[in-house]
């Protein structure tokens, strides 16, 4: 609470809400408690609907009373910012949906899924108070944990460090029960402060036996610490909610004992000490690491919030104890936050794509502006894996409208495939870059892409490449051709029919015939002079002058069409031609043409 400022006048807006509270049916009493820098603290007595079985006692088994004290702090800038509620100091902290408790600051319930200020501006003060009423009633009826919303993870009042992991991969492994698994754990310590630890768990696991984790995995390389992580899997479903209470090894062992995992832990701990302790490192003349990681996997009765999976993962950073051979029970154990690392499963989840959707290999020929953007759009869906084929290198002017932003002198002159692959890899998506000219590649490999690639997308806008792919390449994949015209005012996506008939060159020839009747198409393809300018030595550095916006809109739209076509998973017999015009107001207008094989063959 800030410094008291009793002489400051309560604002009319806060006075209004005090009057309103006095009339509010769920409030039994209202009193201005104090004024401070933080705002006006108003104490209220809130009526709670107790389930009938607790009515005579006046409180529930969990300790919720029929009248609960709620203090609202209205910031001086109210209604710009919402009031914040706190509950009595002895409010039961074992309940879920309580914000991390800061000593001396009261118990802060998490009463809405959205920020209270957003709620206030969306639905008014009544909605904020309504949320408080709902929260208390849910607390009384044992419904703060809700299967529809998801299991609230264990509340951790004191977190230390941030650990990332492909939690989808870890949870996938948990489908097969094993009490313990080893993982590799790497971390950095920022500013020498053990609270500022950034860590990462490498997936998949190494396995369960001690022999799977070797001393050579431990050490410090370029400031990155490498250490073991132990994943301990609880057998059975745990319905009990608790708040974190572990801050030393004996506490952690207590939790593990409760889940009959202590023996398994102790057995692995000996191996961890033998391979990873400072003493073990010293014996191998390596710098010692400070800690190892324990992840406790607890299966909940329903999906954990934000996980779409019932496994809750509780991470603990266990500190080594100087140079001793054994860990004493009072060595510090920190509870870090765990975050999902970027991975295809997360991308699919965020993009709203079914987790069970199969991964689709697609080969891109051409990593120019259009190809790079389309590849990255598709990569961010988490649904594809890639091969990238292009022999061009990156120039600084490409930054004006490239899929990747290339920073630093070192990257200039880098193969474009490497730059796009770098960004795709950063998403955790599989990608294989090939810095090679497609025509050269075709001489030794007429199929261009490996058999697993079911789609090849040519974005080169190169007539020889198109000719080669149409007439000489021995493709088993479905060929698609995407190209822009008219300074990104028209985009084309041509998709070959079954058995390569109709071919892409046929479809592009048909596009030309459309110019006869369609002025827009004619203007985009043949109208006006294309302005080109050189940005380096020689005319080979010349590029078309156009901005990134139109190109981005068209590349996103074309990628969307590719994604839709593949998603429908029923390739028609006909060749498909999709043409998209972008007008000056950035409005897209699509036309589609299906061409039967007999038309051209």
């Amino acid at each position, binding site marked *: 609470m800030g410094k008291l400022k009793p002489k400051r006048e309560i604002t009319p807006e806060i006075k209004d809400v005090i009057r309103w509270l006095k009339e509010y*049916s769920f409030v039994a009493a209202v009193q201005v408690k104090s004024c401070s820098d933080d705002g006006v603290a108003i104490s209220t007595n809130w009526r709670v*609907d*107790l389930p009938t*079985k607790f*009515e005579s006692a006046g409180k529930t088994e969990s300790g919720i009373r029929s009248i609960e004290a709620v203090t609202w702090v209205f910031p001086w800038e109210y209604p710009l910012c919402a009031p914040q509620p706190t509950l009595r100091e002895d409010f039961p902290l074992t309940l879920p949906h309580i914000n991390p408790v800061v000593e001396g600051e009261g118990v802060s319930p998490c009463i809405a899924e959205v920020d209270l200020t957003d709620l206030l501006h*969306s*639905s008014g003060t009544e*909605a904020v108070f309504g949320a408080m009423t709902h929260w208390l009633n849910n607390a009384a*009826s044992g419904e703060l944990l809700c299967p529809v919303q998801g299991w609230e993870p264990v509340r951790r009042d004191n977190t230390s460090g941030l650990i990332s992991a492909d939690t989808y991969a870890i949870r996938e492994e948990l489908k097969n029960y094993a009490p313990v698994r080893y993982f590799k754990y790497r971390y950095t310590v920022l500013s020498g402060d053990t609270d500022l630890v950034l860590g990462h768990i490498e997936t998949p696991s190494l396995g369960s036996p001690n022999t799977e984790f070797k001393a050579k995995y431990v050490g410090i390389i370029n400031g990155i610490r490498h250490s073991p992580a132990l994943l301990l899997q609880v057998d059975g479903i745990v319905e009990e909610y608790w708040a974190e209470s572990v801050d030393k090894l004996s506490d952690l062992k207590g939790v593990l004992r409760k889940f009959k995992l202590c023996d398994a832990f102790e057995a692995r701990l000996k191996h961890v000490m033998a391979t990873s302790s400072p003493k073990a490192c010293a014996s191998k003349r390596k710098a010692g690491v400070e800690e190892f990681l324990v992840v406790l996997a607890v299966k909940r009765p329903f999906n954990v919030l934000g996980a779409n999976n019932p496994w809750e993962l509780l991470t603990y950073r266990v500190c080594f104890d100087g140079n001793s051979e054994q860990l004493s029970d009072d060595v510090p154990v920190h509870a870090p936050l765990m975050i999902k690392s970027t991975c295809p499963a997360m991308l699919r989840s965020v993009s709203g794509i079914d987790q069970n959707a199969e991964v689709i290999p697609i080969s891109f020929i051409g990593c120019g502006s259009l190809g790079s953007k389309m590849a990255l759009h598709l990569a961010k869906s988490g649904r594809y894996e890639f091969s990238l084929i292009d022999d061009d290198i990156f120039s600084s002017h490409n930054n004006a409208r490239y899929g990747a932003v290339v920073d630093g002198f070192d990257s200039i002159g880098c193969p474009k495939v490497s730059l796009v692959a770098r960004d795709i890899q950063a998403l955790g998506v599989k990608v294989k870059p090939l810095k090679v000219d497609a025509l050269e590649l075709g001489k030794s490999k007429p199929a261009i892409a490996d058999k697993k690639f079911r789609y090849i997308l040519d974005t080169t806008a190169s007539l020889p490449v198109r000719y080669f792919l149409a007439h000489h390449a021995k493709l088993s994949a479905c060929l698609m051709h995407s190209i822009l015209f008219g300074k990104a005012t028209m985009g084309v996506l041509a998709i070959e029919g079954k058995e390569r008939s109709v071919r892409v060159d046929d479809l592009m020839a048909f596009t030309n015939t459309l110019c006869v009747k369609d002025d827009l198409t004619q203007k985009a393809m043949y109208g006006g002079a294309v302005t080109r300018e050189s940005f380096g030595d020689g005319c080979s550095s010349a590029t078309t002058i156009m901005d990134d916006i139109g190109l981005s809109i068209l590349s996103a739209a074309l990628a969307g069409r590719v994604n839709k076509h593949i998603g429908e998973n029923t390739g028609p017999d006909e060749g498909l031609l999709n043409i998209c015009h972008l007008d000056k107001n950035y409005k897209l207008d699509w036309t589609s043409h299906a061409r039967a094989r007999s038309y051209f063959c």
Partner: protein
Amino acid sequence: MIKKSSIYHLPVGNGDMTLLKIASNNRYFYVLVDMYIRQSCTEKDDQCNVLDELHNLLEKDSDGRPYLDALVITHPDKDHIGGFEKYFYQGSPSNYTPAKSGEKDLIFIREIWSSPLIFRRKRKNHSLCEDAKAFNTEAKRRVELYRESKSVSSEGNRIRLIGEDIDGKTDDILDIVYKPEDIISKINEVSIKELTINIYGPLSDDEFEDSEALDKNRSSVILRWGIASHGYSDPTNFILLAGDASVEAWEIIWRKYKDAPQKLSYDLLLAPHHCSWHTLSHDSYSKSANPKVSESAKQALSQARTGAVIISSSDPIKDDDNDPPNFGAKREYDSIVSSANGTFLCLAGNVVNGEKAPSVLEYRLTNEGPQKTSETLSADSTSSAKKRTAATSSLIGHSGQAIGHG
């Protein structure tokens, strides 16, 4: 906002009208058990306008029709079926037409649950009111559709019978007949994991000593609704709704379940027959000098769980010889709930804030059993009726300005 199940007891004087709103799979299922909608409730300010309340509580389907997923009629007496003919749609769903301007749309019933009494011929002790006749016509229409197609019909044509009829009248339609001892967990052909219904009645004629005398009150549908909180499957709320089941029926039920009395346990019991003495005794309350309570009938109705509430859906209960509601019966129910730290309530007395008419009594059905919903005062910006409408069931998620995203 997470959806939550609730039960609404609508005050209709001496009659029953209970709406169950069951949350499952992120939607609500609406089941009305009995009705007594008198014309006067829309005209007199000392009566709850249960027609308005019902419309406020129900959602509309994609065709704009207010609908029930199921209508359960315990027995076809006026005080359990009154208003059916006038306010509920009857006939082929394709012929439904919206109401004229200023009038209320008829409520569309997706599935009817009825006792097999609809097949009985009119007899001296089986006379039917106009609403019951309309109900019989509609129920028979639906049964005939099933008979013709031998498959469950589309919404608006569906029917389930609770109990088999005598003389094999329902033998050819057994696939749409629920029998006593069956457990129902489906409404309108949708399985609901939160729902477990035990069927304890109607009892068959041959279970009564005097099997010749058909009595609608003996033949009431008796259902114990077990409802779990949304997303769970183990029921934490047990509601016993028994229409006008008589003392003879409760004696038989106790004989059946005295070795497993937990099967009769309840959190909410609608006192049968509007708190009638004849639910608990064979004697006349007014004519007998010392009317005796049937211990076995009382035992059957005594399986109150901690905090249980027995509700009399009736006129006010006075300390006189009236029956129903009957003061002596109230005293017996008081004794039952007092041993369970529970409460006895009369709906007629559920009057908020000095208003003239009683209000709808609402309980949320939670993980810890029923939780009475506080009456909201008129000072709150939303009226109680408005607050209960499905469209505004969430103050947070469905009202105010949309919260966009960047």
